């Protein structure tokens, strides 16, 4: 018997795993007819999920938490049994602005770039305006974390607005905004058009930043446990295919098709293989771990990642710190479902569900319930770490120096 799973997504490179799960037959192998529904804004992806028009969604992680907590709309509990990937976003500025803070075409130290940006912000006669893809997006929190860490108050020194991903490059080209923080391929679209220069990639801000997740309504997930497990396994297999260098061109070709990203396969291949073109008329450079879709249990929903996102929501003033909400936010990530689904595949399963984020400097072997797992560096650009046990201390120490 075949179950149908309707899954909503936005045309982004990190929608790769659901697309490959369908196109490479991994969903079919698990008895799932995976139907993909493309939208242009996160609001629509989440509406479809909330109102049962889809069973699952490719979603920005903080939106799953915000929806569960009822920020801006009636609360609906969502769950995340699988992380679709880490990082893969970048900060792209107007070329003239980029030239003031970095060497166009080459990656630099993001702390130095941020310090120079702070000088520009202080000297400017108007507020610089940055676009992020959604209020409750990892892009917003990552950008704010970087700005704050460089002495720029994201609430008063600059303006941060929302532009849906497919329109970010255009907004930069039109001069509506001075910079964008968006996922691929939209930074590269801006670079290829000469509308922007990439000054930082988000993996430089946090090497292991949680990005898109598989989100499901908690009730739908629980009522169809077996189907959920099969979906998770199909996505895991898609992750293996995504990181297989031999399949790079096939992967890029599939993603580029009109019904998915409807874009240039060559440009998509750059993101998939971590080769980033920082500025037009330069050569793409290899940025290790630009997109981190599979290795080192990248798909494992660490509860501490949900906790970090909640902390950033508090710092952004999106919600007041609250113990009950903090616990609810952490419960959105479901390592138990991940483990139950993947146990039969014999893959490495972390023994712990939470960790000190940003605490690993050297490759570290971690405890597992099966298999072997070595985690490599996961640091933040400012050298801080985040202990989910001490939220109030973290918030108190996060003021601008």
């Amino acid at each position, binding site marked *: 018997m075949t179950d149908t799973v309707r899954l909503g997504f936005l045309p982004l490179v990190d929608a790769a795993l659901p697309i490959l799960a369908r196109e490479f037959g991994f969903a079919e192998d698990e008895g799932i007819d995976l139907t993909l529904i493309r*939208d*242009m*804004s*996160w*609001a*629509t992806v989440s*509406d*479809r999920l909330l*109102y*049962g*028009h889809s069973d699952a969604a490719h979603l920005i992680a903080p939106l799953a938490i915000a929806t569960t907590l009822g920020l*801006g*709309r*009636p609360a609906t509990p969502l769950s995340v049994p699988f992380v679709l990937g880490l990082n893969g976003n970048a900060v792209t500025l107007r070329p003239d602005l980029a030239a003031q803070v970095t060497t166009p075409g080459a990656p630099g130290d993001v702390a130095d770039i941020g310090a120079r940006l702070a000088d520009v912000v202080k000297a400017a006669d108007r507020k610089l305006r940055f676009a992020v*893809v*959604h*209020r409750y997006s990892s892009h917003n929190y990552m950008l704010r974390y970087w700005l704050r860490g460089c002495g720029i108050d994201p609430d008063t020194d600059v303006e941060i*607005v*929302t*532009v*849906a991903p*497919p*329109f970010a490059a255009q907004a930069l080209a039109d001069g509506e905004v001075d910079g964008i923080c968006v996922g691929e391929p939209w930074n590269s679209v801006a670079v290829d058009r000469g509308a922007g220069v990439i000054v930082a990639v988000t993996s430089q801000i946090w090497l292991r930043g949680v990005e898109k997740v598989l989100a499901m309504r908690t009730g739908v997930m629980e009522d169809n446990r077996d189907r959920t497990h099969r979906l998770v396994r199909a996505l895991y297999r898609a992750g293996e295919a995504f990181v297989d260098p031999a399949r790079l061109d096939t992967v890029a070709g599939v993603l580029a098709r009109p019904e998915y990203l409807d874009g240039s396969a060559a440009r998509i291949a750059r993101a998939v293989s971590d080769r980033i073109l920082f500025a037009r008329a330069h050569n793409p450079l290899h940025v290790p771990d630009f997109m981190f879709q599979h290795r080192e249990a990248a798909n494992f929903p660490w509860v501490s990642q949900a906790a970090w996102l909640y902390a950033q929501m508090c710092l952004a003033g999106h919600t007041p710190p609250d113990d009950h909400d903090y616990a609810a936010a952490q419960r959105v990530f479901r390592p138990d479902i991940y483990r139950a689904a993947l146990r039969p595949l014999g893959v490495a399963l972390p023994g712990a569900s939470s960790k000190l984020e940003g605490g690993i400097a050297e490759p570290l072997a971690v405890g597992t319930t099966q298999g072997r797992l070595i985690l490599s560096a996961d640091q933040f650009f400012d050298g801080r770490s985040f202990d989910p046990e001490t939220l109030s201390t973290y918030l108190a120490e996060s003021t601008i120096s």
Partner: protein
Amino acid sequence: MRIAVVDESAARAAVIEEGLHDAGLTDVTVFADRHGIAARLEALSPDVVLINLANPHRDELEELFALSKAMARPVAMFVDQSDSAGIEAAIDAGVSAYVVDGMKKERIKPVLELAIRRFNAFTRLRVELDEARSALAERETVDAAKRLLMKKRGIDEPAAYALLRKAAMDSGRRIGDVADALVTADRLMGDL
């Protein structure tokens, strides 16, 4: 009740606006352009905002609602949270409504139902228009095929049409398809 309709399709917005007017809801403002919409919406301070579900700028509007005093704590809802049939109808029609907190459900429900009907009406209109367009295109192809037959076979128009119709009946295809095949074949073969 003050209603804002945000839709980049002027034709669809007009269909919705007209429907609301007919129902006695005359305080309707249509926003076809997203530029400057934040300030204009805030100035208008509507009770209900109707948006096309597929509107690509909904993320921006949600940000605006989250910030705006006029739209303090908006609720994205389709009819009633518990009314799943109504929600399904709204999603299928493609209408997304934002209702200012505190608006009574009894008051919003008829507006939404009306909006859903108008969205559906627009979709039907578009389908009919597409059908009319393709019928027109088909007639042009049939005319081209007839001209071709008249020239190549030296026959008159009724004879050419009879020949097309017989070929269609014999092969179980539509006349338009046969005509299309003939025109395509002629283009490919040229003067061979």
